[in-house]
């Protein structure tokens, strides 16, 4: 890059230096063609001197040199000066977004580590309390993000990529917490509510929500395995039912060939793993206490298995 730049510069000066005098000798002084060239010549050194300053094209000297030349030169510079200012603003905005996104990420990390206690056989209420304690912080983070973005209305999707993956993670953690608590799926509007992302100006993108849900499903095989190890033999059945329903629900969607589709394609592996665990438990009669308590329910499961 650097060498390219240097060759670029040297070519400019090599080809420019002989140009003005010779051209003027040939055609007489053609201001349009010749006048701007000293400016271009000066450009590299000038830029090196003050590359970062916004108003580095002090056009006073150049415009006097070109006053007889193209009238376009000035508006051209003016336009790019405006661009620079506008893009600079967006850079500053991005930096501020980035700062909040880092906080979201670290809150999500804390929340994840709280949820991981579930594998350490801590009592569920404690795990849930610890995990839910972070939801408020997440909501605060998102409201700060919303404040920043309210400064540039209608540009939500311009910067959306900057917080996209963090939001997907946050949704997956919320959904997992919700599943542990209720055994149900956290719906889109509920997820939006928890994050404070339910107004029209700053909402939770549907595709982000769906990806988040699929992230959560990746966690469930591990959950099932560990629950069984800890002695909860009913867990595989419940999770299997949940995942089967979830899979059926996702199959209602027409997906494009994108990341969401890829994640959805992975759902069946989670499902299969849970099925295997359920099979292992069932074949050894470990889930037998469940069978004796509710014939009705085990019949239900068999039905859902057939459907699947």
């Amino acid at each position: 890059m650097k060498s390219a730049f240097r060759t670029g510069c040297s070519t400019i000066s090599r080809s420019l230096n002989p140009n003005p005098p010779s051209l003027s000798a040939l055609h007489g002084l053609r201001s349009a063609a010749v006048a701007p060239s000293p400016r271009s010549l000066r450009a590299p050194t000038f830029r090196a001197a003050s590359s970062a300053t916004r108003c580095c094209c002090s056009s006073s000297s150049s415009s006097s040199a070109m006053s007889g030349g193209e009238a376009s030169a000035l508006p051209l510079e003016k336009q790019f000066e405006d661009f620079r200012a506008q893009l600079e603003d967006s850079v500053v905005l991005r930096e501020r977004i980035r700062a909040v996104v880092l906080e979201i990420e670290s809150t999500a990390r804390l929340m994840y580590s709280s949820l991981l206690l579930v594998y350490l056989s801590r009592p569920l209420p404690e795990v849930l309390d610890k995990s839910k304690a972070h939801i408020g912080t997440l909501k605060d983070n998102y409201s700060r993000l919303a404040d920043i973005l309210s400064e540039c209305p209608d540009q939500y999707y311009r910067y959306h990529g900057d917080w996209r993956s963090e939001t997907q993670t946050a949704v997956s953690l919320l959904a997992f917490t919700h599943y542990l608590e209720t055994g149900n799926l956290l719906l889109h509007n509920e997820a939006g509510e928890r994050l404070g992302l339910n107004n029209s100006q700053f909402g939770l993108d549907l595709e982000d929500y769906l990806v988040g849900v699929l992230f959560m499903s990746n966690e469930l095989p591990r959950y099932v395995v560990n629950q069984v190890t800890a002695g909860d033999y009913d867990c595989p059945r419940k999770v299997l039912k949940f995942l089967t329903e979830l899979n059926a629900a996702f199959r209602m969607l027409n997906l494009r060939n994108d990341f969401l589709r890829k994640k959805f394609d992975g759902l069946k592996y989670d499902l299969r793993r849970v099925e295997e665990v359920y099979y292992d438990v069932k074949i050894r009669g470990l889930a037998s206490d469940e069978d004796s308590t509710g014939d009705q329910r085990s019949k239900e499961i068999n039905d859902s298995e057939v459907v699947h």
Partner: protein
Amino acid sequence: MKCCSAIQKIVLMASDSKPQRLRQWASFQSSAAKKTRTMTTQSSLKDAFSSYADDLNHLNDKREKVVKASRDITANSKKVIFQVHRISKSNKEEVLEKAHKDLAAVVDQYVARLVKELRGSDFWKLRRAYSPGIQEYVEAATLCRFCKSGTLLNLEEMNASLSSLSDPSHKPLQINILDYILGLADLTGELMRLAIGRISDGELEYAQKICTFVREIHRELTLLVPRMDEPYDMKTKMETMLQSVMKIENACFGVHVRKSEYNPLLGSGDPSYPLMGVAGGIDL
């Protein structure tokens, strides 16, 4: 019914000899389930996902239409650019006139369709779907303007011409800075082709003018690269751009250096293009 079995389970579990914490867990789980199970899992999930399906279908259809419109803009803008390249010393006026007519047709038909498809939606959300077409259009429009008047068509003018396409109830499609700048970066490639063509046609002065113009754009864009939304894409474009600038400069250099060898030819051709004979000998 389900509540009943949940309670049953607790009773059973209590009589069991399982570890204490698991019992806690189970009772918590089932008491929570008591509250929510009644809301019926399956049907609400189905309802929710069928509404998600509608939303996704709607968005995907729209995106698909926008992509199609964008592709048409690209194809037809390319035709305009090819038309401009048919320029030669003698037919400048008519070639450019046709190019302008074609460009106007691109706006009236294809850009107008894009505007219609985008109507009422978030421009930034679908930007990736229409960005290539818009960039190509920027390229064609700025090329036409340069050939006509030697100036740069600026973004404000372009957007002003587009605002009439959409009906006043909706926010008009405005080309964003990023697409405009990316289009300009591509423009230099076309200008390079034009300059080389002009040199071989003997229009040295015109080539020189292009050279200055391209240099100016390159210089201005250099400062913008790190501030773009995707600086990486822009960086690769800038490298290509520098290649184009240098190609023009080297061509001008070649003509300049060799002109002394052809001095005897001066005056033998068209007096207004004294170097016409030279360019043919340059290896471009």
